[in-house]
Structures are given as structure tokens and as C-alpha cells.
């Protein structure tokens, strides 16, 4: 039974035309089938854009945190990669964009660790300087104690 026949039957019975319904449904389904990939691609592009934006924001944040410029090269590279990703997205090379974004994500994680390592190294340097200063103070105090003992012995001899 084709669609035209079904439509005619529905009209004749004074009821909703089943044929038409079927045809609309079919058309809807057809259009839906056609629209899903388009919509899916559009969603993917948006998703990638969000990821790129998110990673760019992440890059900015990381750059702000890098007050010692310890990871400037890595951040510059990451920006370059994100620009590349943006270009690839524009070219709808989504798979390649994902590869690049995955790398950027990994780079961001690495940069975080490098930043942490840099901060810890700076802390360690500061602590070691503090240790050096404390030992200097200790040495000076020891020297002062030694001199004081000599002075005390001299005074005791005098008294």
C-alpha cells in the first residue's frame, strides 16, 4: 500500500488521513535521519570550541600563575597548538582537533606539575637560604659565645 492510497482512505472515512500521517511521519523520520548527522557535527564543533576556549582560559590561568616564567616556552607551545586546533576546527578536521586538544590537555597537566615543581624548588631554595642564614647566625652566635667565654675567663681572673 502506497502513501497516496492510505491518504485517500483516511479522507473517505472522515477520520484523520492515516496515509498522510504515515507520510508525514516518514518525512519527519527522513528529515530527522538527515538532520542528526548535521546536528551531531554542529554539536561536535561547538563542543570542540568550548574545549578550545576552556584550554585557552586554562593557558591564561597557567601563564598568570607562572610569575617566574619557568614554563613560558611550554605555554607558548600550547598557545600555538590551540591556534592550530582552532584552524583545524575551522577546517572541520575534528578528529585532528581532538588529537591536538588531547595533547594540549596533557600539556596543561604537565605545565601544572612543572609549575608546582618550580614553586617547590623556589620554596626549597628559600628554605635552603634560610638554613644557610640560620647556620650563619648559629656560627656567629657560637663565635660570640666563644668570645664571651674568653671575656668571662679574663674577668674572673681579674676579679
Amino acid at each position: 500500500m502506497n502513501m497516496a492510497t492510505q491518504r485517500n482512505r483516511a479522507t473517505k472515512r472522515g477520520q484523520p488521513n492515516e496515509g498522510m500521517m504515515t507520510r508525514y511521519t516518514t518525512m519527519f523520520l527522513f528529515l530527522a535521519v538527515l538532520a542528526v548527522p548535521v546536528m551531531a557535527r554542529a554539536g561536535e564543533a561547538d563542543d570542540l570550541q568550548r574545549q578550545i576556549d576552556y584550554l585557552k582560559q586554562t593557558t591564561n590561568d597557567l601563564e598568570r600563575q607562572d610569575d617566574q616564567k619557568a614554563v613560558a616556552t611550554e605555554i607558548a607551545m600550547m598557545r600555538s597548538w590551540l591556534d592550530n586546533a582552532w584552524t583545524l576546527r575551522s577546517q572541520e578536521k575534528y578528529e585532528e582537533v581532538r588529537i591536538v586538544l588531547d595533547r594540549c590537555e596533557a600539556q596543561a597537566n604537565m605545565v601544572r606539575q612543572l609549575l608546582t615543581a618550580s614553586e617547590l624548588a623556589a620554596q626549597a631554595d628559600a628554605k635552603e637560604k634560610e638554613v644557610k642564614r640560620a647556620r650563619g647566625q648559629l656560627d656567629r652566635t657560637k663565635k660570640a659565645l666563644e668570645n664571651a667565654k674568653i671575656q668571662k675567663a679574663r674577668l674572673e681572673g681579674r676579679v
Partner: protein
Amino acid sequence: MIRIVQVCLLAVFAAGLLSVGCATPPKPRELDALERLRANPDMPAARKRAPDLCKKADGELATATKKWQSNDLGESVNSALLGQIFFRHALALVDQDKSNVRIADAEDALSSAAEERQKVQKDLDDTNEKIGLLQKQTQMTVEMKELQAQRDADKKADEDKLAQEKLQAETAAKVAEAEVAIKTAETVNAPKYAPELYKSAVQILDKAQGEVQSKQMQQAQSSAAIAKKTADDAFAAAKPSYDRDSQAEENHKKADALFAAASALPGVTARRDVRGSLQRIIVAVPADRLFVKKQTVIAPGKDMVLDPIAELIKKKDFQNFPVQVVGYTDSRGGETSNLALSGARAQSVFNALVTRGVDVRRMMASGQGGAEPIADGRTAAGRASNHRVEIVFLYQ
């Protein structure tokens, strides 16, 4: 033949093309870098610290190598980059651990240094406190010594001053004694009676005063002592002469007064004479004014002539004059009888004077008979004058 050569050349060209087409492309820089990173000395620690990351990196290395060898350079580069990221991530974790260890070590060292410094600082504070006390003690000792020295110096100065004042006082006293001695010598008119000694004493006193002015107290004392002794000697030397002269002068004055008073007495005569060193004032009472004829008892009513004489003898100014009551007769008659008569009459007058209050110890009575006539015995008036009782005041 040519055909064969052409075929061979073609074959060689084809082989060349084949070899060129199948050759491995140059290794990507990223892959080289990944391999160098993998040889990092810290990599064993990184594998232990982050085995998953290192495993993933190793996987990426293998993929990159495989892709490179299969001429897929894009994939190779991507895997190499990912591998680097994973390795560096792992190495960053190792660095963090190392830094944490360094921080922990530093904190331990800090804590240890702080603890040790606290202990050393405490020892230093204790020692400095002891030093402070010792310095204070030393300072106090020095101050005490200085104070003691100052006290000793003050005491010595006081003693010196006191000794000096004492010496000055002693010297002044000795000088004053010498001055007094000289004044004393002057009271006995030493300049007249002991001029040498007095002059010497004055000169020595002047010397002593000069030595006082020039603060030569010891010498001044010695000089003052010598001046005093000399003045005393001058006094001692001058005093007898002074006393004698003074007494004599006084006696003369008194004698003058006595003589004037005696001359004014009624019924008597007064005269002065010198006998040896003795001066005499003689009040002569004619015998007929007291006695009747040859009697030895004073006639009643006639003794009134003795009243003013007794008053004169008792007068205070003349109390130091010894008095002799001497009876005389004229030259007629026997000597023995004259002596008895004159002695008895002298004794009567003596008694009458005693009766009138004259001190008996001042008087003595004697009879001289006809000796020492005062008038011519050949005439009646002369004999009447010689017949007398004399009240003799003696002085030097």
C-alpha cells in the same frame, strides 16, 4: 644488445625509484628529543614515581617510532610530543619529590639549627649575664678601691690638715707663751734689769713669728721655746733687782709719807738718816714729855703723846716697817745706870704702844744710854734733847 642495455638501465632506474620510494624519512626532531628525554638520568626515579605516565610515554615512543618508520610523520610527531609531555610530567613529579625532600631536609636543618642556636643563645645569654655581673663586680671593686683611695687621701689630707692645724696651734701657743713670758719679763722691767736676755728673747720671738709666717712651724716652735726660756731667764734675772727696786721705791714713798706724817706729830721731832743699807725715820720724843725726873714709868697724863705715834705705826701703809723703840739718856751719870734707865724707859714706851694696839712682833725695845747724842750735852737744853725715847722706823 642495445635493447638489453636499455632494459638494464630501466631496471636500475626502477630499482632506484623503488629504493627512493621505500626509504625511511628523516627522524623527526620531536622523536629525537623524546629519545634524549628517555635517557635522562632521573628517568629510573620517574618510572618508579609515575609508572603509568612512563608507560604511556613509552607507548607513544613506540608509536612515534613506528609511524616514523612507516613514513607517517604527522602521527609520529604527535606521539613524540605526547611522549615528551608524559615523560616531562613524570620528571616534574620527580622534581617535586626532590624539592619536597629538600624542603623537608631544610626544615629539619632549620629546626636543628634553631634548636642548637637556642641552646647556644641561652649559653651566650647566661655567659653575658655572668659577664655583666662580673663587669659590675669589677666596676664596683674599682669604685670601692677608688672610694677607699679617696677616703684614705681625704683622711690623710684631714690628718695632715689636722696635724698642720695642731702644729700651728701648738706653734701659736708656744709663740703666745713666749710673748707672755716676754710680757712677764717686761713686768719686772727686764729691758732694764736683764737687757741682754730680754733683747735676745725679743729677737728670737721675732724670728719665731717670721718662721710662723713662712710656715716653718717646727723651727718656729723651737724658736718660740728658746724665746720663752730666754724670756723666763730674763724674768728670773730681772725679778730680784726689780723687786728690790720696787720695794725700795715703795718704801721710799711710804717713808716720805711716814716722815711727813711724823713731822706733823705734835711734841716730837722727826728726822731721817741712813745706817748701812738701812734707811731710818726717827721720831724722837723728849723724855720730859713722858717721864718725871728719873722715873721709868710714863707719867700719868703724859702718855697721850704716844697715841698719834701708835696710830702712825698701826697705819696700814706703814705696817711693813719694823719699829725699834730706843731709849737714850744724856751723858751724865754712870753708863750702866744710863743703859738701864734708857732700856726701862724704852720698854715702858714699848708696852704703852702695845697697849695701843701695835703688833708686838713688829717692835723691839732697847736702851742705848748716853750714846748717839743729838745735841750738845754741855748745855741744859742739849742734855734735855739727848734725854729721849726714839721710835725708829726701819726700811731699805
